[in-house]
């Protein structure tokens, strides 16, 4: 036992000084592209209203089970990208902020009450709100970035947020998990009400 402890101490004694001497990694000297990816990746997770709605999609999909668990998170990024394309093209879409807040309210309520509509209706609801989320992102995109890498970062971040929702939604198999998800749905809906209030104030 003592021998093991001594070995561990020796390893720590070697590794800690090495950690302290870590060099700075100067990755991606080509300006613009990495910034484009990182900016794109950060964009969906920088706004809490977007985060709440996207996580709620994953939670709702997990509650509904297969095939909704993968259909909703597949539908959302695709339709959201379509909304983003409209925003980039300068196509106007009225009431975007209200619709984004409403999406958090309705998706949160769907999770709270474990609303189980027919699959096409669930997909339609998610797709409808996805257009507004995408449009808001599309009109906010900064100029002078790499469009391709920005787009990829943007979509991957969105998918990761859904995956977080689905990951949390795994708790639905337990009774305490079902209660927890409904509680989380209530939190999302309350967040939506807060953002709706902010729109009008």
């Amino acid at each position, binding site marked *: 036992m003592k021998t093991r402890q001594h070995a561990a101490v020796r*390893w720590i004694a070697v590794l800690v000084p090495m950690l302290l001497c870590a060099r700075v990694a100067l990755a*991606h000297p080509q300006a613009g592209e990495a910034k484009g990816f990182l900016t794109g990746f950060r964009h969906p997770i920088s706004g809490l209203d977007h985060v709440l709605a996207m996580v709620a999609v994953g939670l709702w999909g997990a509650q509904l089970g297969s095939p909704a668990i993968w259909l909703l998170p*597949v539908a959302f990024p*695709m339709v959201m*990208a379509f909304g983003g394309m409209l925003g980039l*093209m300068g196509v106007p879409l009225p009431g975007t902020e209200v619709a984004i807040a409403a999406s958090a309210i309705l998706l949160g309520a769907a999770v709270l009450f474990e609303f189980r509509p027919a699959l096409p209706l669930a997909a339609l609801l998610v797709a409808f709100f996805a257009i507004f989320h995408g449009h808001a992102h599309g009109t906010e995109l900064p100029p002078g970035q790499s469009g391709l890498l920005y*787009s990829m970062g943007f979509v991957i971040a969105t998918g990761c947020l859904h995956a977080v929702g689905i990951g949390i939604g795994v708790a639905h198999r337990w009774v305490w998990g079902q209660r927890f998800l409904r509680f989380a749905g209530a939190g999302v809906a309350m967040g939506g009400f807060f953002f709706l209030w902010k729109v009008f104030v």
Partner: protein
Amino acid sequence: MNSGPKSQLPIYAAVLFCLALCPMPAEAHLTSTGMGPIYDGLVHFLMSPEDFVPVLALALLAGLRGAAYGRRALFTLPGAWLLGGFVGMSGAATNGNAIIAAVWFLLLGGLLAADMNLSLRLVTGLAVLLGLYNGYLNGTGMGGFGAASVALLGLVFAVFVLVAFATAFVVRLRAQWARVSVRVAGSWIFASGLLMLGWATRRH
């Protein structure tokens, strides 16, 4: 006492961990890697998402369809790429059209997301078209480069390896969730294509 052979894993892990603590500056997507034209071509492909992602999408699509599709893509795509590259070297330098690049993302990402039941002939045709188009663009860009042919070989080798790994990975997937994950990747590629299309039209 346990006198069996000791695992070497902790030693390897310790060595790798120590190496990870001393990162060297990464020189991504430079014109020259300093390691010769083979590596220049190889790195160029790996650092060019407009080349890399459609190849990945096609490889995943072929893998989902089965081993025969994977084998066909494995040889036709790099072959067509090489041919297009050599043709492009004799042509005038040109930049790729952003809208066409977006269309490749949309087409291959959409087919992958939908898990379309395509014929072997159609997948082969897609591989040839993709290889010829992207190879031609790469070739025109390498025209003034001294060891352009060798760089092109490095690039084609990278295409071959990516297709081999991606198709082999997907062909053996049997669990439904794993195959769905591959289709989700297709939906992400499709979504990226839509946004690229928006960027391209915004510029115009």
